[in-house]
Structures are given as structure tokens and as C-alpha cells.
């Protein structure tokens, strides 16, 4: 049975460092300097923009100031998401050519690499299913969004799971364009997203969900996750990415 590394490294109050680590891992995996890896982590109040999104168009900066929300851009495409302590992030980095995702097909990457999270949520009693292009939904409401890329010799997939997030803040800090809401025939962000807590009707921690997803990943892909840490080289790449990219407003805000 294949073994993947399980990394829990996070900087809860430093979304810029969190994003630097997020990029350092797939770079190292692709170079053969680190094994296939699954990372779990949290951010405090943060908007994470897709790499093609305009901060000016997507972000309500007044609401961010009011709620103490930081804005950071990730290196993958897709839409803006809101992170807080009730949101669990996971990331999977597999060396390119891995039999699970052998092709240069991003849709297949999302479908296959969402499966572990889907299984994990189901094991907790949430009726989750993958919804193309990149969502996990429960009864038509989004509970998780994913993004990913195929670069640096790595197939990379990451997602965030709304476990017990504050949906009221989410609705305030993101400007959702009318054209998008109209297309989905729903009036607001809050009406088209849900949380694991709301679906289960009881308090659930991100730890519970993480444990479920670890199991879901192990069962779905027939792998064993073994707790590990970042290598010195990964940490130094992360520090460099922090200094040159993720701590800079030119990267985070100027698109």
C-alpha cells in the first residue's frame, strides 16, 4: 500500500505564510524532494482570491475592514472563498503521472481528488456529492469548493470545507456579481452555501471533519497517511515565497 505524508503545518493568523506553504509543498513534490502529501490547515478571517480574479471587483474592502478580514491571492484559478476558524482547508499534492490522475485533465483531477473529502463527509452523516466543475454539494447547496493546477511536475488539488463558518461575514465581504446569482436562480450567497454543522444540526469541529477526511482519503485511494513535517528546503522555499510574493500587495491585490 502506498504511503502519503500527512502535514498539519498551519499559521492560523498569517494567511500569507499559509499560502506560501501551500505553494512550497507542490513545488517540492514535483522536484522529487518531498513525498506525495496531504495538508490540513486553517486561516483566521481571510478572503482567498483565485489567481485570475480582480480584487477590486470581487472584494468588499469596507466590510473587510469592519470584520478584520485579510485578502490573499492563491496560485490556482477558481473563485474567491472565505476562510475562518470554522473552515477546514485541505491540499493534495501528487507527483505528476500518478495513476490516480494520469492525464492533464483538470476536471478529472477535481473529480478524483474531491472523492476523499466526499467520503469523509459522508462518514459523518452529510449527504455530500461532487458537483462539477469543482464543488461538493449537499442537496444543491455548496459545502466545499476546490481548485487546483498541474504545474511544477505536480498534480495539485486543494479545497475548503465550510464546517462551522460564519456565513453572515462571508455574505458581506465578497461581492458576488449579479450575473452569477441570476444564473443560479438564488438570491444570495447565504442561500446557496451550507455548513457541515447546519447539515448535521449539531456542533461539529474541524477536527472531527479532518479525522473523517483522513479516513475518506485512505479508503478512497487505498493509501496510508503518515504524519510528517516539512523539510528544511520546503520551509526555506515557503519563507522565500512569503518574502517575494504572498506578503506583497502587488500579488494579492493588483489584478
Amino acid at each position, binding site marked *: 500500500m502506498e504511503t502519503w505524508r500527512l502535514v498539519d503545518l498551519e499559521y492560523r493568523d498569517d494567511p500569507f505564510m499559509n499560502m506560501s506553504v501551500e505553494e512550497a509543498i507542490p513545488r517540492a513534490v514535483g522536484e522529487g524532494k518531498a513525498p506525495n502529501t496531504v495538508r490540513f490547515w486553517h486561516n483566521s478571517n481571510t478572503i482567498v482570491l*483565485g*489567481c*485570475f*480574479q*480582480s480584487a477590486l*471587483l470581487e472584494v468588499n474592502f469596507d466590510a473587510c475592514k469592519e470584520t478584520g478580514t485579510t485578502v490573499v491571492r492563491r*496560485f*490556482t*484559478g*477558481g*473563485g*474567491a472563498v472565505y476562510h475562518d476558524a470554522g473552515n477546514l482547508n485541505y491540499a493534495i499534492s501528487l507527483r505528476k503521472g500518478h495513476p490516480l490522475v494520469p492525464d*492533464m485533465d*483538470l*476536471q478529472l483531477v477535481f473529480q478524483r481528488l474531491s472523492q476523499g473529502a466526499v467520503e469523509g463527509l459522508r462518514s459523518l452523516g452529510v449527504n455530500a456529492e461532487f458537483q462539477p*466543475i*469543482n464543488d461538493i454539494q449537499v442537496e444543491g447547496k455548496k459545502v466545499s469548493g476546490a*481548485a*487546483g*493546477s*498541474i*504545474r511544477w511536475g505536480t498534480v495539485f488539488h486543494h479545497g475548503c470545507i465550510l464546517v462551522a463558518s460564519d456565513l453572515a461575514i462571508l455574505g458581506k465581504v465578497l461581492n458576488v*456579481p*449579479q*450575473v*452569477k446569482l441570476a*444564473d443560479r436562480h438564488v438570491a444570495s450567497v447565504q442561500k446557496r452555501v451550507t455548513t457541515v454543522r447546519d447539515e448535521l444540526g449539531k456542533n461539529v469541529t474541524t477536527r472531527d471533519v479532518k479525522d473523517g477526511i483522513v479516513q475518506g482519503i485512505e479508503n478512497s485511494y487505498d493509501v496510508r497517511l503518515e504524519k510528517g513535517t516539512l523539510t528544511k528546503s520546503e520551509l526555506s522555499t515557503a519563507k522565500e515565497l512569503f518574502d517575494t510574493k504572498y506578503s506583497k500587495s502587488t500579488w494579492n491585490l493588483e*489584478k
Partner: protein
Amino acid sequence: MTNGGRTLLSADYKAPGGKLLRVRLRETGGRIESAKISGDFFLIPEDSLAKLEMMLEDVPLKEEELKLLVDRFFRGTSAQGLGVTPDDFVKAILAAKPGESGF
């Protein structure tokens, strides 16, 4: 909006069953002076979008020319979109044209 012979144009175009393309253009005399494309789509390699924006400079804001250029971009870069097709890029840019049914 007009500014010294330039017109600033914009459109938000939702690809059917897919993602959102938000186009902001400067147009002079029927040609694109500069183009900014943003949105929640996927495109790999990611840095190819900047190339497309550059290729759009000085191109007439006309369907035929835009189609040829976008096709050349996708062939030349082997870029792969998800949630957007090459045709969606053309439609989104044209939607910014005055009188077109932009959203």
C-alpha cells in the same frame, strides 16, 4: 466612458454551465488598446492569461479577428481552460462592445 479618444468598455459574461469572465477593455478607433480579463475560471498554465491579454492589444474588436486570435493563443500555448471555452473568451470580449448584449 470616453477619455481622450479612448473608450473604456466592460462586460461580465457567464459561460453557459461554466464560469465567469470579466472583461475590461480600452478601445481606440475600433481596436483594443489594452485588455484585462479576470474571473473565477481555470486556465493552465496560469501565466498564459497574461499572454492572451498581450496578444489582444491592437486587435480589431470584431468577431472574426478575435476568433482567429483566441484560436491561435490556445494552439500556440497548449493552454487548457476549465469552465470556459475558447469561444467564451471571444463572446466575453465582444459583449463589452457598445450595443452588444453584454451583461
